[in-house]
């Protein structure tokens, strides 16, 4: 009965479902993009093996962070700091790749270990103007070991190709810290430092106290502290909120019209002994069902959109699609259905049987 009641006015129901689908599709896309960004940040910092990431205090983005190597050496002496790995990071346009991620690392420090060499060799301490290319970059630039690539306005010889499992890094390259510093004109400075420690919270507090220009945080928390990630998350939350309001209004409008059109019918049902609760239940079921159908289509739309974004994005993005997103979409749909159906259901239940029967 629920489905049949919903599709009495096919066009209206289809339009409402389409509206909900677009809303939920938008929500799903934003969530997945936001999640992909967070996931990428997490991969960058947490999965590199560091327990703490140290960067310049009050920086909105780690790419902009610059910390003194002398302070880094001072930090090495703090109790609890077991190992450190310095990183110089920059984004360059290389060939047709507008977002070529370049990392300057110290061979022998733990950060470089995640870059698994799949052809050629790794970097050596005394290498100069040598670079490792990520697997995706190698494919996109159609370059491999022995070729020369222009980075920072200089020519670098490709000595190895690596795979890190992170699209941003695999779409870039790794050189020595000294090469990166020279090319960027940032001698004596690094972007951030990864720290291995047995007690991250205690060690982070010590670092923050001893070196006030540093921000030391658990590597797992870095992504949530990034301003651009926070901004995207705030925008996403706002849009989700607006989508819920609009979606709820769309459902409510459809259900109110449906209840008005069926006033007489509801009067008959009440005359036949249907209590207010049964009438409310009928309307709420229709409302929730309408939203759930919208959610299914919305999820498909969201999935299709992120796949499209993935193809056209100049920045390599990995979207962690999991069933939790589908469950989230269904939960939003349920909420929309409940919110949107509440007033019409209440209105239907309050109809006096005799007045409803007289309704023309």
């Amino acid at each position, binding site marked *: *009965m629920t489905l*049949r*009641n919903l599709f*009495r006015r096919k066009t209206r129901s289809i339009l409402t479902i389409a509206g909900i689908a677009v809303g939920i599709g938008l929500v799903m896309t934003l969530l997945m993009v936001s999640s992909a960004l967070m996931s990428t940040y997490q991969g960058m910092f947490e999965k590199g093996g560091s327990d703490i990431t140290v960067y310049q205090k009050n920086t909105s983005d780690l790419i902009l962070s610059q910390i003194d190597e002398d302070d880094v050496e001072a930090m090495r002496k703090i109790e609890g700091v077991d190992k450190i790995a310095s990183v110089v990071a920059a984004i360059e346009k290389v060939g047709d790749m507008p977002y070529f991620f370049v990392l300057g690392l110290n061979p022998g420090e733990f950060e470089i270990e995640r870059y698994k060499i799949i052809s050629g060799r790794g970097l050596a301490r005394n290498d100069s103007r040598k670079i490792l290319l990520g697997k995706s970059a190698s494919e996109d630039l159609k370059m491999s070991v022995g070729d020369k690539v222009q980075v920072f306005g200089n020519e670098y010889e490709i000595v190895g190709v690596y795979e890190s499992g992170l699209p941003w890094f695999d779409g870039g390259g790794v050189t020595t810290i000294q090469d990166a510093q020279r090319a960027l004109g940032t001698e004596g400075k690094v972007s951030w430092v990864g720290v291995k420690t047995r007690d991250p919270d205690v060690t982070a507090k010590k670092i923050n106290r001893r070196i006030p220009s540093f921000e030391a945080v658990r590597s797992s928390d870095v992504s949530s502290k990034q301003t651009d990630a926070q901004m995207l998350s705030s925008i996403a939350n706002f849009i989700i909120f607006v989508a819920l309001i609009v979606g709820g209004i769309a459902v409510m409008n459809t259900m109110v019209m449906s209840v008005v059109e069926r006033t*007489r*019918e509801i009067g*008959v*049902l*009440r*005359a*036949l*002994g*249907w*209590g*207010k609760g*049964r009438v409310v239940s009928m309307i709420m079921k229709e409302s929730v069902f309408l939203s759930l159908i919208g959610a299914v289509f919305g999820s498909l739309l969201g999935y299709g959109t992120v796949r499209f974004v993935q193809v056209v994005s100049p920045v390599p993005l990995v979207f962690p699609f999991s069933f939790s997103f589908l469950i989230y979409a269904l939960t939003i749909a349920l909420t929309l259905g409940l919110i949107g159906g509440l007033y019409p259901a209440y209105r239907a239940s309050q109809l*006096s*049987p*005799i007045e409803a*029967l007289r309704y023309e």
Partner: protein
Amino acid sequence: MEEDMIVETRNLVKVYKMDSIEVRALNGVNLHVHKGEFVSIMGPSGSGKSTLLHLVGGLDRPTEGEVIIDGEDIFHEKMNLDDFRNRKIGFIFQLHNLIPTLTALENVEIPAFKMPRNERRKKAEEMLSLVGLGDRMHHKPTQLSGGQRQRVAIARALMNDPSIILADEPTGELDSKSGAEIIELLLSLNRDYGKTFVMVTHNPENAAKTDRIIYLRDGLFERDEHLKRG
């Protein structure tokens, strides 16, 4: 109240307020219907016929007075009117009021929501066969004639074995042939199955076939004619 009295109203008054004007639809009506009777209620427009039916059926509340159905004071404060209507009353409206998206069978099942599914389906099939629509169970109302739709409504009214069946101008929207068939059906249900009917009608020919005709005027009984042995 007599043992076989199934409907009793005591000094029933209904006043409608329309802006500042009061309309007294019923002025103190005392109705008595015995089990198995087929009572017609006639009167000019505005005499209070439908109002009386609606109060007896618990669709509306009186301004004053009582309605006792099968020994139950239906407007007692603890009475659940929805439940009362479901158990005790079968309604047949002038317009069939079937749900257009449901089949005849599904429409008939509507009142029996407390019955187990299989039992409900079986009973609905029996009721439809009883009214002569055994071969039209899976048709939607748009696929049925006016007379057939009213038969479905009658089957629906019978579903919960109600104490009384209230029919408000059941042939009002039908042509004379279909109307005559419907009246014959109602009379046969009364005669062969002992169902108690209270019918509002404008048609004197139909009323003449019943046991009693009560004439209402200005919210009061004008006369009460017994046509058959009660």
